[in-house]
């Protein structure tokens, strides 16, 4: 309890400092919003074009696809607001020896790295994503009950943890190796593909890869399946299993990685 209270105080201070930093360059404040909103609006236009030539992709109509794009956008937006810019600096801190500063402070280094670069400029992206999701629900013409909405939010939170785990795992690689440029490329390629391609389109080896090895394929698919009542019990259990598994892997990789850290020579 004392630890939690201390972490909250630190978090509050980090948010305050971040706002001060962002106030220096105002265009950068909204840069993530402008970049990512254009990306997801482009996706919607592309799928509008696809659906003007076909009724369905698998058993998903346009409504499900709009909710899918909105969900991926929401996951990405929350990621941007809370932890992306912090976690993204891990490789650079490892290479430059800047991680020393984090290890010498009386607070978890990963906690500080995670929350020290929050990006409030991405908050409008959260609002835009919610609008896309509501638009999709409107096309689907479903009455969203509290239980359904609650289940959806539960899956969003769970998948956000998975997103975080994946980012930390990939960015912890420099604790073990000299270069990680390829890992970021692989992450970018995997995310780029699954952003456009829902999990229902995957099968065989593709499904194995994007559902288990690099589980970007389930990140937006499961929340959408929960909201359209397409998710069965086993899929739900599998989703929770993957999140737990990757959280454990993240802890192990980070903790073991810190033992390999040799300050500036890493």
């Amino acid at each position, binding site marked *: 309890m004392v630890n939690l209270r201390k972490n909250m105080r630190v978090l509050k201070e980090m948010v305050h400092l971040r706002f001060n930093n962002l106030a220096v360059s105002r*265009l950068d404040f909204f840069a993530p919003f402008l*970049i990512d909103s254009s990306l997801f609006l*482009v996706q919607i236009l592309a799928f509008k074009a696809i659906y003007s*030539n076909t009724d369905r992709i698998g058993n998903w109509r346009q409504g499900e696809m709009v909710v899918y794009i909105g969900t991926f956008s929401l996951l990405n937006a929350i990621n941007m607001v809370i932890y992306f810019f912090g976690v993204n600096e891990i490789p650079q801190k490892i290479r430059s020896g800047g991680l020393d500063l984090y290890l010498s402070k009386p607070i978890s280094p990963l906690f500080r790295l995670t929350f020290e670069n929050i990006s409030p400029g991405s908050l409008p992206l959260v609002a835009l994503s919610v609008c896309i999701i509501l638009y999709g629900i409107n096309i689907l013409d479903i009455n969203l009950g509290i239980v359904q909405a609650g289940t959806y939010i539960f899956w969003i939170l769970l998948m956000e943890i998975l997103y975080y785990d994946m980012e930390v795992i990939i960015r912890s690689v420099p604790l073990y190796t000299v270069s990680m440029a*390829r890992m970021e490329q692989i992450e970018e390629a995997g995310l780029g593909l699954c952003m456009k391609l829902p999990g229902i389109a995957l099968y065989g080896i593709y499904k194995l890869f994007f559902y288990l090895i690099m589980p970007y394929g389930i990140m937006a698919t499961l929340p959408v399946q929960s909201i359209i009542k397409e998710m069965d019990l086993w899929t739900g259990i599998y989703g929770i299993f993957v999140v737990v598994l990757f959280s454990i892997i993240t802890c192990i990789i980070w903790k073991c990685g810190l033992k390999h850290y040799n300050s500036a020579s890493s």
Partner: protein
Amino acid sequence: MYKYWEISKTYMKTQLVWRADVIFNMLFTITKILFAYLLWGMVFKDKDVAGMFTFHSMVSYYITSSFLSQLEMFSGISNEIYWRIRNGTFSKYMVIPVGIEKYFLAMEAGVVLFYILFDFIAALVWVFIFQIDFTFTNNPVIIVCAIVITLLGLVFMVQLNYLLGIMGLKYQGIQTFLMVKDNLVMLVTGGIVPLALFPGAVVNILSFMPFYYVTYLPSMLFTGFCHDEAFSGIFIILFWCIVLQVVINIFWEKNVKNFEGAGI
């Protein structure tokens, strides 16, 4: 001309330093093709034709488009020029006895010449792996037109990125704009879906824009579509190249005096 050929050769050799980059560039062309293969595989389960495409002609389009867009590796030019202007090292290009824009054209020509063979091999490998009944036009005139449009499209993209880079002479922050531009270009060059799937009115408007001719029209011509646009395409993209060159010259003349050689 000789000195520009030397620049191209130097950059061709430079690519050999990062051999892993070559391999990964080849491998990552798969994402676009995999997207097309899986997505359109589902769509074509229920139907034989979507728009003007069959499943095999659709995947052929994506393979060709992916090959052409891999050749277009010029977005780095804007960043390179922008940062050199900001930190003052742009002087490097001003003191050497070559035209700066021509230098970048020669540089990119070298990179493209180096990668063209590897990208071609990658495209062949994907055709083989995904067992695509690859559709390709057998009309030699159309092939020549498509090659000319592709080359002019590449020149246009170098010009565009050069213009965006030298905007650093006047504007402080163009990074956000460059990233938004990349997202939009991906759509309007037919990189996500063929533009033919958009409503007719939208396609008509886009056909007056230069991006239509960068990868989309050449890909369509190579895969046997839009033959009637082959000749007009050459003139339209040529027109845009000339317009952009005029804009570059005017912008350069007006703003180059802002550069003081020690950063802005």
